């Protein structure tokens, strides 16, 4: 993939194939009034296949979302056709209002004002649990 086509903006690279659309939706990129490109299933030496998201502008990104969906992804800031910065992503310890608890018995299912908060319980297996009912995020 050639990055020359983006002058100023953000490239989320090394997204495991299949996670691109999930990231696009969770990051709320469909609501942006800027050009966004998703390129899927690109051959990759590291991942065999990967997805890439290119955002043709600077926006505030929720890195917790990227870390939750795909901690192996990288975020590259491009300025004047050059790499300005490469950011590595980490799995966040806490996820707040990124995903919703799906347990119908959880207090969050009836009290809409509560934040949906998940804590990382098992980093190796990427397990997040709801702080209220301890249901596993899925």
């Amino acid at each position: 993939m050639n990055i020359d086509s983006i002058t100023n903006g953000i490239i989320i690279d090394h997204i495991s194939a299949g996670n691109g659309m999930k990231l696009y939706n969770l990051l709320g990129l469909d609501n942006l009034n800027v050009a966004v490109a998703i390129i899927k299933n690109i051959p990759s030496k590291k991942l065999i296949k990967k997805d890439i998201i290119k955002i043709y502008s600077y926006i505030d990104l929720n890195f917790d979302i990227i870390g939750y969906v795909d901690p192996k992804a990288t975020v590259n800031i491009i300025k004047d056709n050059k790499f300005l910065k490469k950011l590595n992503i980490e799995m966040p310890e806490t996820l707040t209002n990124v995903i919703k608890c799906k347990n119908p018995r959880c207090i969050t299912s009836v009290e809409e004002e509560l934040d949906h908060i998940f804590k990382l319980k098992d980093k190796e297996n990427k397990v997040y649990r709801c702080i209220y009912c301890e249901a596993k995020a899925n």
Partner: protein
Amino acid sequence: MKSLIDILDFSVEEIEELINTANDIIENPEKYSERCKGKKLATLFFEPSTRTRLSFEAAMYELGGNVIGFSEAASSSASKGESVADTAKVISCYADIIAMRHPKEGAAYVAAKNASVPVINAGDGGHCHPTQTLADLLTIYREKGRLNNLTIGFCGDLKFGRTVHSLINALSRYNKINIILISPEELKLPSYIKKDVLEKKGIPYEQTRRLDEVIPKLDILYMTRVQRERFFNEEDYLRLKDSYILTVEKLKRAKNDMSIMHPLPRVNEISAAIDNDSRACYFKQVLNGKYIRAALILKLLKEASE
């Protein structure tokens, strides 16, 4: 503000302290009869649980305190749509400590985050019921004189049985605990508890469908009820409710000093003929529940005042 939401909120040392206090209350009730004079316990029961509520209330009265509260959501502001957070803030203005039962999982956590007095989780749906676990631990301690070096069989509904999950969590912190899980396939202990608790802490366990095969090995048999309210569908409940029944015949193969425990209420999983057997501990558990709740109220009120 220290509250009790999950049994693991308390360290092994804190549990030992509670057990010691409870034992002292049992030995010297008069010493404690005015310890909570002028204090109020609010029992907020958003779903009925007469047994647990009365246990808390009896505990508070025996400490010389008073009790306010409600016993079902219909008679609370929840029926008008008030949030748990707001209820906790409001009740904090009236009471010194709160014991709360709620059908939704995590409700007690929300209450504790918003209350300005200690909150005791008296059961939050199928999630936690830490004071039952404290009653169980006190019972084990009083029957066996120890909380380690025990083989404990859990029988019945191990999937939805929150008392089982809590007790396994609590026991996982003691040495030489051996666990035997006895249940039908559909009601097996959730795999995350096996993985996150038993396997992570290296606690030996085995799973079986047959109570009669393993009963000779047990120091403690913890029976559970197959609870109708935990099922989404009636058909599954009816099919499984009679799966595991302890009879006089099965008990013949057990050790002479095996303790039979049950969080109660029972339906038919322990034959009434066993009630007079010296190994039956389930009514002692109820009594112990009152004493350990008294010890807990004392501890949380003391810490809140420091």
